[in-house]
């Protein structure tokens, strides 16, 4: 059974993505993709992964980190984890 993501968790995720990628307040983070966001470089990706790990108490494998290149992919990944 797949775990679902609460509104609160999704809100935190959006806040993290907006902050780490330095997106403007009115940007729709749910549409963010690494290829379409200039600030989503390798260093920002490291910061984003660390922020997600710390915020949601998970450890993301290297193979998964490489795949998490969009908001939607991150959301799907976290939905598959039992979040606190």
């Amino acid at each position, binding site marked *: 059974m797949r775990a679902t993501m609460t509104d609160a968790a999704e809100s935190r995720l959006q806040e993290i993505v907006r902050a780490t990628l330095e997106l403007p307040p009115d940007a729709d983070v749910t549409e963010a993709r690494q290829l379409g966001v200039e600030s989503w470089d390798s260093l920002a990706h490291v*910061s984003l992964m*660390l*922020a997600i*790990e710390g*915020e949601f108490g998970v*450890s993301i494998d290297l193979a998964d*980190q490489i795949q998490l290149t969009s908001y939607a992919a991150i959301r799907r990944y976290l939905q598959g984890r039992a979040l606190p």
Partner: protein
Amino acid sequence: MNFLEAQRLVSTFQGGEPLAFLFALSGTAEPFALYVRAAAARRGRAADVRFLPFNTLAQALRRDADPTVTEVFLLMPWDFAPEADWRSGVPESVDQETLEARAAETASLLARRAQACLLYLPAPLPPLFPDPSRGAAFARSLESLALGLGARLLPADAFALGGYLSSGCPVGGTWIGRVAEAVVDAAAAPRAEPKKVLVTDLDNVLWSGLIAEEGPEGIAGEPSGRGYRHFVYQSLLRRLRREGTVLAAVSRNDPDVVVAPFRSGRLLLREDDFVAIIASYHAKSAQIGELAQRLNLSLDSFVFVDDNPVEVAEVSLALPGVRCVTFPHHDDELVAFLDELASLFPHRVITAEDRERTDMYRRRLDGMIANDLQGADLTRFLQDLKMTLTIHDRSRGDRTRAVQLINKTNQFNLNGRRVTDEEVCAILDGGGRLLSATLADRTGSHGEVLACLVTADNTITSFVMSCRVFQRRVEYAFVSWLAAQPNPPAGLEWASTPRNTPFQQFLHEVAGPLNGAGFVPLDVTSVVDRHARDVGLFALRQA
């Protein structure tokens, strides 16, 4: 501290005292930036952190440290042994001796940066050796090296292999906030400069016993019996001296008395291990201040060790920069004491100059230091001791301790005259008085510390006090009390002895200038007036 909390701390921080430092690690440090700024903001500091470029720690260690820059190193096992870096995979084969030599070389480079703050993350190592137990032992040896450099150990769980392989950042997201806090704590910790000079008391510190009372044969500083703990203390001082700590001694004694034990060969330390052995009856604070001036060293670099809380208080009050450490009265406090003392003189490396420092400083001094020096006003400290002075009339009943005190005291002794019990008995039968005093304070009882024999014609013929209670104004309070009694003493039978300088100073203060030996008259009204303040230091009782 997680990401969003760090973000909030930084965005709401109003600014504070700058905290500038270099955060050095061999991996990717940039992800720490936000967390470090947040940890500093939480402490009211504005972090101004600089990082080393990726994978340049080894090069940075080979450059001289900039003394104006605070450095915080986050060390990983592969900073000591590059073959153990997970990012290089498991080496085909390794030579343990080469690994160890390389680790020792890195440790020596770190040791040169005496002011650097070190954190060590004991991340697991790849399987380097065919025998896993050798790998475990090697990991421990790296940890020991780091600890030996004074590094603070971080939890091994803080290491995240996935993140390290992907980005070079060795710390995972669940730990990065906590590691950043440790980094900021290290950067913000006051830089305690190692101390340079250790000034030690002698009696009951460097040796057991009172040299002026018991003589060179009566003291003990050898590795046996009551001298053992003092021998251990001496052995630490010997080590510190070898490492460059400058040793000095101060003692309320006569110079020729205190050097005798050093010349006897019975002590571990010799006279020339000390830059100065200062023996006088001046305030110890004044002697230390004079020594600092003549050595041209800041008082902040001095440590003072004494067993007497009054001496410790006097130096603390007069010289707040001097670190005062009390020599323990009980064996079970000795370990902590020695540990504290050793930690005040840390040395990561010992140079030839360190070993010669005492000789170098001794050349700056041209002999003993003894002049007219003033100490601290101890009134408040003495008031806080809550001292009770109880006067006993020993004219009748048991007078054993009072007579014993007269016959064994050398320093605070009116004339050095020894008396038999029969002689005392004759004076008492003739109408004389034998008084003694016991002292207690909030720390406990000091026992019977003073004795005074007064003849029928109101002449004090014996007056002694234990040197254990010097500087507490006991003698002044007692003589003031005595002067206020019916039939006060008319004077004292004074004589100078080779050892009774402390009494001479007291008598000079109480009765004015002395003109050779003989009867010294006492102006009781003046004594009562001038020493009322001393009486006020005590709860005075009559048994």
